[in-house]
């Protein structure tokens, strides 16, 4: 059976690209013939074909296209409409545009455009809607897609490669405790409240707390970056925050190893791969129970409702720093959850199981 893996773009260390490449490897290991299709690709160690060739590449109606839906893309919608082969929509979610309303008209328009296609994809009646999380699938089930055509598969990732790297600590700051946040600098990641929580923890007998931010700032979100700097200054946290925009894998590895905890206050995540990285590398998590985060993290972290304020997060940080037994418990739970649900072998088994249940073999 042939699988055409279609994505709007492929790049190294990108979550959607990692998922597409991981699925390719798992399907090939199961004996299928797989090829990647994308209009743009760089740094990918295998041939990536022009999406216009996809219909010629598929040989029969039993072959399958897996489309990684993460932005609005008219070409993909038109292709899936006219295609006679079997179709899987692999949905990674699209951030609601409201998050960007105060920061970037371009982002608002792009997110609106992407989410505007949800109705059209739901109406296509594809063979399978494969969400990263139960939260993601709600976008389709609320649009009338029957549950039996839906399945959850956590995204493939490169955590194992990350774990195998030698940590490079040269640019990793000290902190007592050192707090970590990983993710692009964007409004839905809630960096402003994260700074407030840091200020609260410093005020709660943690004068040496330090927050390490690892994430890039898109120039089109420069205003949000300025707002973040202003919030840091407003709370007097300049000496308590370090920001690495260009961290490589070895530095990310060192950051997880040195940090006492990952503090993830994001308001919208379709899955949140950094949580998986934290679980695998033994870094406990303090997070908000928003979007997909509860299903990703399970009981392996301190989860708070989304109305939790800075003081509650600050108190959680202080407690997790001081309580070694709690720290060890969350660390053990995270590692067990990773091994059971997110290890590559588990993901590959789950993919095979889903394909078998939906008669794709």
């Amino acid at each position, binding site marked *: 059976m042939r699988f055409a893996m279609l994505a709007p773009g492929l790049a190294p260390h990108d979550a959607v690209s990692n998922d597409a490449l991981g699925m390719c490897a798992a399907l090939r290991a199961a004996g299928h013939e797989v090829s990647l299709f994308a209009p743009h690709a760089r740094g990918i160690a295998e041939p990536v074909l022009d999406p216009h060739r996809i219909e010629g590449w598929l040989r029969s109606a039993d072959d399958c296209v897996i489309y990684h839906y993460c932005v609005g893309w008219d070409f993909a919608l038109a292709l899936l409409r006219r295609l006679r082969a079997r179709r899987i929509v692999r949905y990674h979610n699209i951030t609601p545009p409201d998050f960007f309303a105060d920061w970037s008209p371009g982002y608002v*328009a792009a997110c609106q*455009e992407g989410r505007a296609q949800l109705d059209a994809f739901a109406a296509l009646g594809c063979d399978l809607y494969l969400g990263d999380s139960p939260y993601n699938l709600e976008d389709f089930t609320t649009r009338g897609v029957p549950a039996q055509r839906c399945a959850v598969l956590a995204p493939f990732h490169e955590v194992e490669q990350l774990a195998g790297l030698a940590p490079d600590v040269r640019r990793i700051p000290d902190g007592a405790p050192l707090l970590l946040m990983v993710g692009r600098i964007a409004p839905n990641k809630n960096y402003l409240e994260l700074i407030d929580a840091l*200020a609260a923890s410093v005020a709660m007998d943690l004068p040496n707390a330090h927050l390490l931010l690892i994430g890039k700032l898109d120039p089109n979100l420069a205003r949000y970056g300025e707002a973040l700097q202003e919030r840091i200054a407003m709370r007097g946290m300049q000496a308590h925050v370090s920001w690495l925009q260009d961290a490589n894998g070895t530095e990310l590895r060192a950051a997880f190893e040195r940090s006492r905890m990952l503090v993830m206050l994001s308001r919208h995540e379709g899955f949140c791969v950094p949580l998986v990285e934290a679980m695998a590398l033994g870094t406990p998590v303090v997070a908000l129970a928003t979007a997909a985060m509860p299903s990703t993290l399970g009981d392996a972290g*301190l989860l708070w409702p989304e109305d939790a304020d800075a003081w*509650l997060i600050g108190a959680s940080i202080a407690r997790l720093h001081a309580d070694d037994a709690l720290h060890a*418990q969350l660390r053990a739970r995270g590692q067990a959850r990773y091994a059971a649900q997110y290890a590559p072998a588990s993901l590959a088994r789950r993919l095979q199981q889903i394909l078998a249940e939906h008669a794709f073999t």
Partner: protein
Amino acid sequence: MKPDPATPDLESIKAEIRSAAAAARARAPLPRVDPAPRAQAAASDGIERERLDYDVSELTGLDHGAFVDNAYRALLKRNPDEGGAGLQLHLLMTGADKTEILGNLRWSAEGRHIGARVRRLRLRYVLAKLSRLPLVGYPVGWLLALLKLPAMLRDQRLLQAALCERASLLAMAQATLQRQLEQLEVAQRGLVAQAPHRDEQARQLAARVDAVERAGAELRTDLQAAARERADVSAAIEPLRHYVHTTHHWLTSLREGMVELEAAATREQRRADELVAALVAHEAAQESPAQAHRDWAATLAQHLPAGALVMDLGSGDGAWPAALIGQGLAVAAVDANAVLVARAQARGIHVALGDPAAVLARCADASVIALSLSATLLGDAVTAARLFDEARRAMADGAPLLLRVETGAAPAALVNDARTAAAWLQAAGFGEPRTLAAQARVAVLVHKR
């Protein structure tokens, strides 16, 4: 299933965290530092975000990548993303009109949201799109071409004139190049003439290169040897580091052991002091020493001027110094037992806490005019001999020494009666002893000869 008592209960921990947060929330608001007033920041990326009115000619003047960049920045108020720019350039390279690119951007979802006005664009965009439609597009294309015919003829004439000018410039450039070529040929002939000389220089250069390569090979050998030595040193350092760590660990353990021993010794000393104090109190309870002390003090006072300073070593609970003070004498009292010193302080007698033998050793020669010793200080023969030697050194000639033997079962069993005390004092070189007895207590008075 019963919860594991060793495993923290998350819900109860969360309740404790909520309480801690509530307490912190009630204590103070989040810190807030008013930022310094900022100058109006100029847009660092050069995008005119406030400008929403353009003429199409402003946007079509540039070419290729510069045209696409400018269109994105004007119509979408951002720099082009990699994929988008690639797509627009692809359209340009496949013959699309610039107005079609501008229209695509202006009437995209993002462009509509921004809503920039581009004068004279709408009609051109519609016509460009119409010309791409099947069937309709062909006559529309013809119509557009017909309408543009006068302008196209003018462009053609302009092009012809420009080409002629370009041909003229090219002819001039060709003539210049021809002259340069001739000069080069002359230079080449000169070089050919110098070829033999160059060959000799090349041989010399080759010899130098050989020498440099040999030096390089030697340097590489030296570097390899240095690397081996470094590896050897690294290998030797590792056991040394291990030894240092082991020694450090041993010293740390030793220090901790010493601290424990010192603490135990302090406790033992305290216990011993308490025992001695209890014994003194017990004996005082059995028989009050007050009368004996008054008698001895009176006898001693007879040998001293009024207000003379008596050095009293082993003063105990202050009863004896009190008797001396009662006879109008001054007393410098010292005892090593912290419990007895505290008891003396409680009765208003100042007794210094310290080693009596050390105090005596610090006294200048012949500076003590009267000395009182407790027999409890004579723990053994060596101690007694040293103490009496020091006493003789420090005492003035003829000064009296009174040795008190008060505690029958005292830890110092070396001297526990008048006869032994007198023998020791005589052996130490003091004058004729005089025994001052009072029931169970006894004192011996001597003078330095």
